């Protein structure tokens, strides 16, 4: 093969020496890892090991105490939060008073729309067909989570940061999350998901990161 070696594209997400301190107590880190397109990484760690904080730092909600976050090789700053990251936290960011459809329309307005999908299709693919116009308050916790997952399908973010995506879901829901993650990875997206270990990402062989308070091992 004599073709010129292509310059290696920077990974979608890279953390370099990332650490976060609160009241001078380390919450996590220092931590370095890379996440390329098509990868799903499962972040494991006990309660209080700083998983949620890590996701907040990676998304740009919190500023790291030391280290840098690079998105496509460029440092993440507050002034330039990009369209490339979607965060699904413990709080789902959806309104109980509105219907799933209204919630999704708002999410699209705020974050943009991926091509080739509509809110109706997204709701259908998370198994909520027929629930479009029910007030969210009347849905179960698992169904609310599915609405939040539908939001991920709609917004054009390449990187998903999911905090405990399996919580509140039944077996069928867990399979759904895994299917969505697989689909996202196949499209060239990447995802970082946290779990305290009770559930597992079953399909494929995901890379695992262990988060143990102060140090983390890849």
């Amino acid at each position, binding site marked *: 093969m004599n073709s010129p070696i292509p310059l290696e594209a920077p990974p979608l997400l890279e953390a370099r020496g990332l650490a976060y301190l*609160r*009241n*001078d*107590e380390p919450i996590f880190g220092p931590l370095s890892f890379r996440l390329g397109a098509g990868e799903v990484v499962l972040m494991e760690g006990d309660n209080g090991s700083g998983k949620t904080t890590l996701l907040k730092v990676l998304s740009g909600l919190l500023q790291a105490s030391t280290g840098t976050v690079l998105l496509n090789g460029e440092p993440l700053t507050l002034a330039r939060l990009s369209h490339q990251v979607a965060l699904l936290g413990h709080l789902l960011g959806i309104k109980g008073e509105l219907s799933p459809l209204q919630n999704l329309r708002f999410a699209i307005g705020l974050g943009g729309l991926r091509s080739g999908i509509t809110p109706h299709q997204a709701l259908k693919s998370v198994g909520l067909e027929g629930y479009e116009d029910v007030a969210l308050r009347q849905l179960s916790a698992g169904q609310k989570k599915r609405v939040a997952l539908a939001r991920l399908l709609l917004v054009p973010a390449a990187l998903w940061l999911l905090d405990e995506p399996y919580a509140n879901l039944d077996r069928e829901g867990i399979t759904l999350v895994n299917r969505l993650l697989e689909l996202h990875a196949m499209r060239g997206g990447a995802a970082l998901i946290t779990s305290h270990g009770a559930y597992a990402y079953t399909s494929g062989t995901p890379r695992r990161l262990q988060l143990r308070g102060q140090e983390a091992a890849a």
Partner: protein
Amino acid sequence: MNPLVLWFHKLGSPPYFYRFAGRLLPWFWGAALAGLAIGLYGGLVLAPADYQQSDAFRIIYVHVPSAWMSLFIYAFMAVNGFIALVWRIKLSETLAMAAAPIGAAFTFICLATGSIWGKPMWGTWWTWDARLTSELVLLFLYLGVLGLHQAIEDRRQAARAAAFLALIGIVNLPIVHFSVNWWNTLHQGDTVKLFGPSLIDSRMLWPLLVMAVATKFLFAASLLSRARVDLLELESGKDWARQIALAEERA
């Protein structure tokens, strides 16, 4: 690098600042106490009585320096707050927050002594005159900064939020002063002018200036001792803080 810049950089490190402030403290306390003694002696004994206000005017020696300090400390707090927000320097956060209670104390003194002065001069404990009212708003601003600082769990986040409030306050203060002035004014004009001839006898003036300098030293001394303790608390996980705790235990 420029040696001065280098020194500032070193001063920003908490253990260095702790030692540096510790060495300065006795001098500052000494200068403050000596200045207060001289200023009060000059003001209460040596200065002649005022031809209009008789001896009641002597309250000026505690009232006016406190009023100056209340504004000076607010400006100091806001400048440090600005540095803390823009460059995230821990020492500036600490200094800004250490200054707030001292400023509140001086503002309180200014209001209390002003009110005591008002009783014999105006016949009431309180008048809604422009400067007294502005000073009252200033006290509320100080209390707001202190309250916000106390209400937030994370110490550094608390310092940043309170510093931000201090900055809003510094925009607000001239507006308050202007509006209150527009609203009502009864107060006597400035007695001491920094530029131009002063309206006050020099035997009355020098104790006032001595008091002004003494309160600056008092502020500096109190600020440094507060900042030292706050840094010790903030950095209690670090080695240098542990060493100090152990050294104190042995002593």
